[in-house]
């Protein structure tokens, strides 16, 4: 993303703050009907308003790290192609970055590890109730997008596809947050299979279900309508709120 694009996104955001809830920064891509939809918009816009300085989620000390980070949900996708890549130590694994980027390309794990990385000790907060502190390392998502020439000016969401057939999305507000990283390392070791090897998303200001594991490809888009039921993620199609900040 060029400096001009950054300014552009900045001005869109400031404009949205001044003019009220007109931007996708404050309103989820799909607003549910009835009182729940009203609450969704209130929750997201309040949260985004309070986070308008793009604050970081709390970062902890090494001694806070939980001994056994839970392995929850999918812990080893039965997908044949995935199992083959796993046996080969993910040397042949590739992450296609496509859609509204200037220079779409597929990145190898080595490519991703060569990008400037960020390490952060944060609390993973599961919407189900558990939480655990761990250290995650990987390039910020904006570095990955930079490696593909930056996003085009009409980009609004980034969609993540996973090996087990899930998809999830975040908006530009979270895409350009410094703590939004693609983690290949957990607590100093390669990301274990149970935690989403070889690469998973970290969106620290949202609940666990946004932080999808087993990344397969990334797509930059201007609309989420063509994915699944058009609500922006599998969990939202299923009935959870797309915005997982609460």
């Amino acid at each position, binding site marked *: 993303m060029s400096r001009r694009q950054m300014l552009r996104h900045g001005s869109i955001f400031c404009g949205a703050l001044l003019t009220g809830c007109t931007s996708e920064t404050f309103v989820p891509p799909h607003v549910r009907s009835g*009182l*729940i939809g*009203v*609450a*969704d918009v*209130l*929750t997201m816009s309040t*949260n985004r308003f*309070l*986070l308008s300085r793009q*604050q*970081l*989620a*709390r970062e*902890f000390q090494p001694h*806070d790290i*939980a001994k*056994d980070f*839970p392995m929850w949900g999918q812990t080893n996708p039965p997908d044949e192609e995935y199992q083959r890549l796993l046996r080969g130590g993910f040397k042949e694994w590739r992450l296609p970055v496509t859609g509204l980027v200037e220079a779409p390309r597929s990145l190898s794990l080595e490519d991703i590890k060569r990008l400037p990385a960020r390490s952060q000790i944060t*609390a993973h*907060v*599961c*919407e*189900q*109730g*558990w*939480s*655990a*502190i761990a250290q995650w390392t990987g390039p910020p998502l904006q570095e990955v997008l930079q490696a593909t020439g930056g996003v085009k000016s009409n980009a609004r969401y980034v969609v993540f596809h996973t090996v087990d057939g899930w998809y999830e999305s975040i908006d530009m507000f979270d895409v350009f947050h410094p703590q939004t990283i693609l983690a290949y390392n957990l607590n100093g070791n390669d990301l274990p299979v149970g935690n989403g090897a070889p690469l998973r998303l970290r969106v*620290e*200001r*949202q*609940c666990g279900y946004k932080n999808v594991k087993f990344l397969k490809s990334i797509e930059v888009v201007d609309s989420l309508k063509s994915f699944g039921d058009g609500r922006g993620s599998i969990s939202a199609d*299923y*009935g*959870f*709120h797309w915005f997982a*900040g*609460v």
Partner: protein
Amino acid sequence: MVRIFSKQWIKLHSYNVRICHWINVIASGYLLISGIHIFLDFPELYWGHTGYQGYPAIFKLSDWGISWDDAGALGDRMWGRNYHITFAWVFLINGFVYVVWNIWTGHFRDRMIPQRNEISIEKLQTAVQSQLSLTGPKRHAPDNYGILQKLSYVLLIFVFTPFMILTGIAQSPGFTAAIPSLLDLFGGRQSARSLHTIGTIFLVLFVVVHVLEVVTAGAWNKIRAMVTGNLALQRDKE
């Protein structure tokens, strides 16, 4: 000699109090039920920032005869989360309207905040004694709250409700990024979750006592007063 009963009506509750009261009943009911659903899907409590299945817990529902899987089958956290967050907004906005309105009209100052002459050890003792002997005479006039009533309402509205709201949002990764002091205030997300649950038990106890008080003070008359605003006073005439 014939005893004649004549009814005399007094205006007890304003429109605002009545409307907010019943919206609050609905919102609190949904909050309780949806909160139970959320809890059942992860029926353990921990202290600090970290807590997960297998981590030292301060409370396990399985110790009380309901296994993890049984609890999970009872709880629907998706429904629970959707409705908990929705009715948290209803509760919050309704409560905000109620508080601002009643500060503005002087209702809090005139009827809810204990007067200086009401607060003394002897008066509190008398009030507690007459409260405990359910048949004993209530010392306060029917159009005014008793000292214990005043104290419990003020604590509920200005101490307990903010506590529940704060322990609620202290569990949110978005809100704690914006207001990190919430994490320090309660000692972590799991502590906030545990305190929120313990607070719920106190709230349920408050409602039980509140309903018992209404029943002993004449359920029909009291509930009617919360709907129509008017309380009937019965007076014996010779």
